[in-house]
């Protein structure tokens, strides 16, 4: 049957992805303002290589590279990978992460729409597991733009942050990492807070997180993403943290966990990737809750300081089951 549907449908995959990219601008700018050119270099490297690998995969799959590039999904994946990486990381890490994300996580599963796992998180998790040394070197104090663009480029293409005393003072673990290590040593929260920096001890990542939150709220306003996943992730995480506060002696800072690391980036930009999230509204609430809970569990009891990537990937595994469960619930409420 030749159906008419004579409607101009303004929404498109490309438009959605563009809006997501626009919403990431404030976070990127703040991150850049705090930690310098390294952020932009990471983004440029990741985007360029992601586009290249996307085109290559499309070519290998005998499909048009132009169609795939035109939907901007590869760019979004690349930007998300770059924003998870520490600035001034060796150049091959963003390239490797993007390549892995595109080739294995996306196109091996059948390209856009068919990937079971969030490609950005697969790429990031791969480099996080494979190169822990490189990925644990974060700038401790906000450098601003004090490290020049040329110096940054030099650092990126010559093995990352140089091991000289002048630089050593700048680098260190993230706030979440510090919190975790000190909590394991049974230090008190006030002692931890004295050691950490930033507005409330999240190594200035609270500012980037607030910028991501602003971008995420704008996406909600534009109805590009649904409220279910962000709300569910944040509420579950907050509930788990408060529960911990009440019943556990292990020190833990609620604001650092809520506004530190990649919490907001995850809640609004990573776990809201529709392809790897649950399908229905109820399913998305369950999916968000699973993600939020896993973030808390891995952060507090796991071996990695920030757990967003693993939490999202594990929740992705649960999606087919959540979708089935939802159909089952629908049927039992109807009956």
């Amino acid at each position, binding site marked *: 049957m030749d159906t*008419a549907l*004579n*409607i101009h449908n303004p*929404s498109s995959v490309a438009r959605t992805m563009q809006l997501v990219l626009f919403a990431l601008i404030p976070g990127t700018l703040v991150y850049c303002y705090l930690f310098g050119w390294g952020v932009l270099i990471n983004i440029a490297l990741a985007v360029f290589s992601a586009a290249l690998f996307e085109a290559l995969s499309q070519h290998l799959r005998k499909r048009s590279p132009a*169609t795939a590039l035109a939907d901007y999904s590869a760019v979004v994946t690349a930007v998300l990978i770059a924003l998870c990486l520490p600035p001034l990381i060796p150049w091959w890490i963003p390239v490797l992460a993007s390549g892995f994300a595109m080739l294995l996580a996306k196109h091996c599963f059948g390209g856009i729409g*068919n990937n079971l796992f969030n490609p950005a998180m697969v790429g990031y998790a791969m480099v996080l597991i494979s190169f822990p040394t490189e990925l644990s070197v974060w700038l401790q104090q906000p450098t601003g733009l004090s490290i020049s663009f040329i110096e940054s480029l030099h650092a990126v293409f010559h093995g990352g942050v140089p091991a000289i005393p002048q630089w050593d003072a700048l680098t260190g673990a993230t706030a979440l990492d510090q919190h975790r290590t000190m909590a394991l040593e049974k230090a008190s929260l006030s002692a931890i807070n004295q050691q950490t920096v930033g507005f409330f001890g999240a190594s200035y990542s609270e500012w980037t997180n607030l910028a991501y939150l602003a971008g995420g709220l704008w996406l909600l306003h534009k109805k590009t993403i649904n409220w279910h996943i962000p709300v569910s992730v944040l509420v579950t995480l907050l509930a788990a943290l408060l529960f911990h506060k009440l019943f556990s002696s292990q020190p833990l800072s609620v604001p650092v966990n809520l506004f530190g690391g990649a919490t907001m980036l995850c809640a609004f930009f990573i776990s809201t990737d529709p*392809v790897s999230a649950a399908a229905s509204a109820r399913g998305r609430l369950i999916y968000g809750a699973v993600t939020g809970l896993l973030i808390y569990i891995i952060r507090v009891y796991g071996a990695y300081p920030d757990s967003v990537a693993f939490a999202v990937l594990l929740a992705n595994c649960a999606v087919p089951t959540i*979708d089935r469960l939802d159909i089952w619930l629908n049927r039992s409420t109807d009956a």
Partner: protein
Amino acid sequence: MIFYKKQNRIRGGLQFETRDFGNIETPPLPDAVNIDCGNEAEITVSPGQQVLTGQPLTKPDNNVITSHASVSGVITSIDKQVVSIKSDRQDTRFQFAKPVLNSSSDYQAYFCKMGLIGMGGAGFPVHQKIKSITPDTLLINAAECDPAIYCDEALIQERAAEIVKGIHIALHATGAKNCIIGIEDNKTKAIEQLQKHLPVNIELVQIPSIYPSGAEQSLFYLCTGKSGTLKDNKAICFNVATCYAMHQAVDFCRPLTTRILSIVQNNSVRNIEARIGTSLLTLQPMFDQPLPEKVICGGKMMGVTVNKNHCINKTTNSILTTEKPAQQILPCIRCGACEEICPENLMPQQLYWHTSPINTDQLQDLTLHNCIECACCDAVCPSHIPLAALFNAAKSQLEDEKNAYQKAELAKSRYEKRLNRLNSQATRQRKQLDSKTAQLSDGKNSDAEKKALIAKALNRKKSKTPATDKSRNNRSL
């Protein structure tokens, strides 16, 4: 009385756009008309015959829709049940006798003779609809079934009094006790006109102007707040245009030979009252631009594409000339926009996933059969996937599978029954033979007697013709 039941709102759906239009126009009388009488109708006219406007072309029959000549003139040809008439430009009317209408069955026979059908879009014969139910409630559908159709609105604006007369006829014909009219709240002029003419016992309910509220099932829910099918609630639904046609048939003895349809173009909306069987090419003066090769009939959501030489039939409610935007189909990204807009609370993206390849069990779990194919999901899909068309195809495939399964089950049960029958027959014969053997071998009969019995049996056998024996054996197999 006006009720605006705000709490009654369908889930999801698309907002209507309001557009202005002028009075209903009458295009010049066509030179020729082509009337499709339908496959089952028995045509009673022949080529060369002179016919008058309104003269029946087919024999009235309860199972088919009667067709009538829509212009007076000469029949030029009859090809594949399509009667072509060349107009004599006189438009002389065929005179029907004033009917006597006392009971519902009188109305059924008369509406059948006058070729009345549901004018909303589906085109279900009115007499069959009345016959199928003895309703308590008569629901009048004054809402459009598609966001780009304006013909009912135009009709109400200009001929509200006639519609109300038609509603009274419908009440009489169906025997319904109460009547509700459902209309979208953005049709202010039409509501005004209806209010002016409505008697107090008819309730006018405003519904939100959201597609697909105009489908009779959702309209009934919106007007009464009752869920369940119309049949369950003892209700019957007629479109306003159908009521108008009833009024024309009963009060003026006019069969259905014209219909009002909307011509929707980029810059204008026109409503015209055209003769059934008019070719779209003849209506060219009504269009702003030269007709494109393909136009869309039946609205922008559920319409179908037809050629420009298509002829207007009783269900043609609109013609759209706006270009179909070419948008590339991309893979589904599971964004869930379709699920939010679905008025039936289905999960279109999950359904889509299970349509290629078809996963029967999953599609049944996801209640594909509840899909009304309103195409709201198509309208919001960022990947521009033609979901409604895919669901339509999947539905018919499921139906085929179901039929094939039922057929196989029937064959199986027939085979098993036959096997049982043959077994019991064999047992019975064996028993008879055994008892006979026992009877003969108990030593009471002498050899001579036995021989006589054998000869008797052989004679009996001989007297029967072998041919009949053979055929009987075949039949029992």
